[in-house]
């Protein structure tokens, strides 16, 4: 039985977003069913390939022309190969354990993996490095649409994740990654998730996440991790990085969230894990996050906060909170340490976050906010500057807590403060979670942008070095008209 957040603990709680899950993996035994006659795809312009047993040696493994199933092609692929999937619906859960392969659909909107609410993951990449998945749709899986775990080098480009039971697109304990030009909707946890990594060396860019429990979730992730130029809307809550000892590599830290359009995350009819219910109505919410930079986002139309820095309470923690001098320790080292079980609940405060140059409007409780429970706010090191806003909690927050100045107890930190413990009460009357299988979603998009030259572009495995991002060039996006 999942733990239930209980009222009566005099601390604010921000739950987290984890999941992963699924039934046992039986991907190797799945079958595929192409629903239309495949068109002949074009091989790269090389010398004539040698064909043996119907399979050419040109490094392109075609489904279903050469392999009946995606899994069969993936199993046959070697590093550097391209698994090219033709138009059709494939009832498969595919497991990938080969390094440096590229798996691509010829048409993002017409190459569809469908789990029929029986199969667990559209793609599960387990400890395989350099795997890139491109240009296709995964829908109706009981767990995740696209899932990497334990990988160095990963990329998801031009992917659509629709109505999957945990996450849409999910990278766990993986470093060196890119999730881009992708879309996720209809998951109870998050549309996009990057967790348990430091330094993550990852980029989430140009994605759209809507009608999920959370638009983005990131537990214990950070370090050269940027979330940029994306849209998070119509979720219960928008972007929610958090700390917690139920995963390794805590705390959450050093993520840059910039240039995103975050609006209307108050959706009452989405699938939602318990944490999403609790976080509902917030745009960008750091729950025990540390050292993040939140800048140049446009955040509007939220019932609670536009950008909130709140604590996360763990009632049954698995280790003590690391001291600041341990925050630079890479995940590969920290995960090997023996835990020290604390005597009581842990309160992960949001610490040392920078909130600057955002544009906020119509966030009904407060455009910008910081809160704790039992900890003096001026000791947390969070700062707010240059934000276009009309409300804050506490009042005059940018005067109390400007960036570039030492914080002090001077000033009124009480008036208008955010009493997050009230959220524990309010969640009892929140609109309940909806089954992801039947949740009301907008019409499934069928014209999302395709990868250029999908049928002929050469295979480029995922690099473990993420693209360089010019953060200075990022601008506040326009509002949706």
């Amino acid at each position, binding site marked *: *039985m*999942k*733990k239930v957040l209980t009222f009566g603990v005099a601390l604010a709680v921000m739950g*987290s977003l*984890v*999941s*992963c*899950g*699924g*039934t*046992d*993996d*039986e991907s190797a035994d799945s079958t595929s069913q192409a629903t239309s006659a495949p068109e002949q795809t074009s091989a790269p312009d090389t010398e004539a390939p040698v064909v043996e047993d119907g399979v050419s040696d040109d490094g392109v493994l075609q489904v279903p022309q050469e392999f009946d199933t995606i899994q069969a092609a993936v199993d046959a692929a070697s590093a550097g190969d391209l698994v090219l999937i033709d138009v059709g619906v494939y009832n498969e859960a595919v*497991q990938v*354990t080969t390094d440096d392969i590229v798996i691509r659909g010829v048409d993002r909107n017409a190459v569809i993996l469908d789990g029929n609410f029986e199969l*667990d993951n559209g793609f599960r990449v*387990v*400890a395989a490095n350099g795997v890139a998945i491109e240009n296709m749709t995964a829908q109706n899986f009981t*767990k995740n649409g696209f899932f990497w*775990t*334990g990988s160095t080098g990963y990329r998801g480009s031009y992917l659509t994740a629709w109505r999957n039971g945990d996450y849409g697109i999910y990278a*766990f*304990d993986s470093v060196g990654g890119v999730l881009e030009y992708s879309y996720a909707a209809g998951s109870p946890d998050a549309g996009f998730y990057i967790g*348990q990594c430091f330094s993550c060396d990852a980029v989430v860019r140009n994605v759209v996440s809507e009608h999920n429990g959370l638009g983005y979730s990131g*537990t214990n992730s950070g370090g050269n991790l940027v979330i940029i130029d994306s849209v998070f809307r119509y979720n219960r809550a928008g972007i929610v990085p958090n700390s917690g*000892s*139920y*995963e*390794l590599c805590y705390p959450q830290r050093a993520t840059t969230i910039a240039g995103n359009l975050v609006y209307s995350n108050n959706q009452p009819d989405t699938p939602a894990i318990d944490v999403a219910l609790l976080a509902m109505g917030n745009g960008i919410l750091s729950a025990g996050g540390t050292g993040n930079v939140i800048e140049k986002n446009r955040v509007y139309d939220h019932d609670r906060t536009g950008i909130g820095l709140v604590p996360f309470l763990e009632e*049954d923690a*698995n280790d003590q909170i690391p001291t600041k001098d341990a925050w630079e320790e890479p995940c590969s080292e920290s*995960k090997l340490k*023996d*835990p020290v079980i604390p005597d009581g609940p842990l309160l992960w405060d949001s610490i040392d976050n920078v909130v600057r140059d955002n544009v906020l409007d119509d966030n009904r409780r407060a455009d910008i906010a910081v809160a704790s429970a039992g900890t003096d706010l001026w000791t947390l090191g969070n700062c707010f500057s240059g934000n276009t806003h009309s409300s804050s909690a506490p009042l005059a927050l940018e005067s109390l807590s400007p960036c570039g100045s030492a914080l002090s107890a001077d000033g009124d930190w009480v008036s208008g403060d955010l009493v997050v413990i009230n959220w524990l009460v309010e969640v009892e009357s929140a609109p309940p979670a909806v089954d992801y299988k039947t949740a009301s979603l907008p019409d499934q998009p069928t014209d999302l942008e395709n990868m250029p030259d999908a049928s002929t572009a050469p295979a480029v495995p995922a690099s473990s070095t993420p693209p360089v991002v010019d953060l200075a060039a990022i601008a506040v996006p326009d509002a949706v008209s």
Partner: protein
Amino acid sequence: MKSLLVGFAAVFVVVGCGDGTSLSDTSVSSGSDDEVVSVAVVPNGQVVDVQVLDNSYRPLDLTIEVGTEVRFDNKGRNEHNILPDDVKSDAELIELLATDDSPTAWGVVSTELSPGDEYSHVFLEPGVYPYYCSIHGVPGKGMYGVIVVE
């Protein structure tokens, strides 16, 4: 004259089933030419904890004395399972446990290791016991662990 092993909680011979002791084919030489003593391995009363987190076991590597109980506690927020490496799924584990009562038949399915659930097993036979969570790993990769019983 027969010799007897006395005094130690961790006995280094014999395998038993989880619910008690049994005699194995392993024997201990007394030092004389033709006398052999078989000694039952019993739980030694030691309990070692393994945290089942999202998505890892902690500690990943564990070395214990034979007769030790290992207690797995799901401290995460998601279901997990514990499958020996040669078992592919919950269904296979159910079948294994229903037909094999040897000390090496162990593990727990995901429906019985939800957040807050515990699973315990007493290891009564020396050996290396690799295991994994099929939801979040494969043998030796992703979410996996190993127990060495000495």
